[in-house]
């Protein structure tokens, strides 16, 4: 029963929603299903918050290495929760000026907005900015000319890299728009780095990406079917009763 009922619900819901994609009258049912999911996720968020508290408190009480970070996490958690729930510093809504709490907790100037704008946002941006350094280190490893394939990859990467910046124009912009050795089709300017980069991206990268996308679409269809038909139940546990 523990797995049969969820399987039944998911199978019926899944197949009905597939059918609604072809029946205009019921095409909004998918949105309704998403609203139901959001309700469930909201309840699960309490579970997540509880788990976060439990884990961090355990670390602090056991004085595990790095327990100070857990203390910071908990302090930040409670301050944000309080500031958001109590609507600290919120300006009253223009329609209800007599009620101090009638404004939106996200409105500009509120404490919650301040936390988001001046703490959360810069911290997120800092993490995101690290990506630039990681891209450099990953590129350094990926583009080492270890063998023939890696050398080809390196050459193509250099063309695309230069072709997508002004360096490409600067380096090859002087190539004249004249036919090579009197041939009719090809000109010197065809070897402009931006042009070569465009050819690589449009004629080689795009078909490759499309092939991957087709494979992904088929994989999604197959996995969805396995889940709906109950062929793959591992996400609900094993075939034995737990």
């Amino acid at each position, binding site marked *: 029963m523990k797995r049969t009922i969820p399987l039944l619900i998911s199978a019926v819901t899944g197949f009905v929603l597939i059918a609604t994609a072809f029946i*205009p009258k019921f095409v909004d049912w998918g949105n309704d299903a998403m609203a139901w999911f959001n309700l469930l*996720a909201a309840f699960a968020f309490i579970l*997540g918050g509880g788990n*976060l508290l439990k884990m961090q408190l355990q670390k602090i009480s056991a004085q595990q290495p790095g327990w100070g970070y857990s203390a910071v996490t908990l302090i930040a958690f409670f301050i944000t929760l309080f500031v958001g729930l109590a609507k600290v510093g919120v300006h009253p809504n223009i329609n209800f000026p007599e009620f101090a709490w009638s404004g939106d907790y996200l409105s500009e100037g509120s404490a919650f907005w301040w936390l988001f704008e001046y703490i959360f946002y810069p911290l*997120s941006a800092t993490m995101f900015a690290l990506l630039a350094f*990681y891209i450099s280190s990953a590129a350094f490893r990926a583009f080492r000319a270890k063998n023939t394939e890696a050398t080809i990859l390196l050459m193509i990467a250099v063309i695309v890299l230069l072709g997508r910046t002004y360096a490409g124009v600067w380096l090859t912009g002087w190539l004249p728009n004249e036919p090579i050795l009197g041939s009719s089709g090809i000109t010197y300017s065809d070897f402009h780095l931006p042009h070569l980069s465009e050819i690589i991206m449009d004629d080689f990268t795009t078909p490759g990406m499309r092939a991957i996308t087709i494979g*992904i679409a088929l994989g999604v*269809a197959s996995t969805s079917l396995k889940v709906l038909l109950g062929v793959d139940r*591992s996400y609900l546990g094993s075939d034995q009763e737990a």
Partner: protein
Amino acid sequence: MYKWINPAIKRLMILLLISTSGVSLVSAAEPPAPPTDFRAEDVPGDAGTAIDLFWTLSPDDEENTKPRKVLRYVISRKVADNKDAKFENIGEPTYRVNTFRDSNCKTGVPYLYRIEAIGQESTTSTPVEISEPVIATLQWFNLQRSWFAVFVILICGSVIVFIEMARRGKTLKIRKIAGLEAIKDAVGRATEMGRSCLYVPGIQDINDIQTVAGITILAQVAKTTADYRAKLEVPTSRSLVMTTARDTVEAAYLAAGRPDEYIEDDIYYITDEQFGYVASVTGKMVRDKPAACFYMGAFYAESLILAETGNSVGAIQVAGTAMPTQLPFFVAACDFTLIGEEFFAASAYLSGEPQQLGSLKGQDFGKLIGGLLLLAGCLIMTLSAFEGRGESQEEQSQSFLHSAQTYIKENILGKGGF
């Protein structure tokens, strides 16, 4: 004495400027010419709630005229079978726009539409009405998606057929996937080194199919860690994923005969926030130095931060995702990457269950259909290009190949098809 001279000169200058700029102070703006060929059509394949309107732009609605003679169009509507009904404004598309969709229609009600062009100083053109009322009708089946329906039936049908064949004992050959073979080696290495295995199931919720695929792979990884008695940690960025992962890992340990070694607290929730989650997981990596890292699910910008950190601590890394934009990052930074369809095939491959392997054959059939369509499309497009050489556009559009090419583009490919 000279006080009056300055204002007089100013007035003179203004008059001079106005006269030279060609703007008349007395003549009012003329109303623009009305749009022509105004027509309305029921939107095909909808729930009977929309009507499309088309018109030819007013002759005064020119692209580069300044100031513009037409500023916008006003569309009005009234119910046709009600004598007392008046035209009501339903939309005001801007200049150079010649279509409008009325999405607030009632099914089965006849409507009449009117259009006017609005010019400078709110001058209005002569209104143009459609001659016959139009009714928005409900379609029970979206015929525009009929080719898509055919493909869904073909591909899903083939998956089901192959699953059934596998159930009946037909042996299916599946090629080796190096990334999946490496999972056992990675877990074995972690056991030997006495370090943990880290499993990241992406940053999306359980309603994302990639997360579901990631969780199904987690079941197989957990079985392996249970067999090898390695420590498995699963930090999640969604509460529902945490509960699902806990059930999955618990059942895997149970199936492996080691339920007592399952530790619930090793599967925990961090935060929904993308970079907060990344900060926590990478911090964990640097402190604990896991020997094996698995990234299976939906990833965005955090993919490379995670994979590079894992690389820097010397972990064996296996990644799998269906996010095409993140695949290059994983390929560059991880030891093995499951690309797109391999990621979805992983659960079936690792479980080795015949009926799951059957679904992979169904996928192959889908690829066959896709490949044949691509070939046919390329052939038709190429032949059409050769056939159209030296012909006028009208002659080209009449040819069979051109019609076939248009039909494929509009029906078999795109929104309503493959």
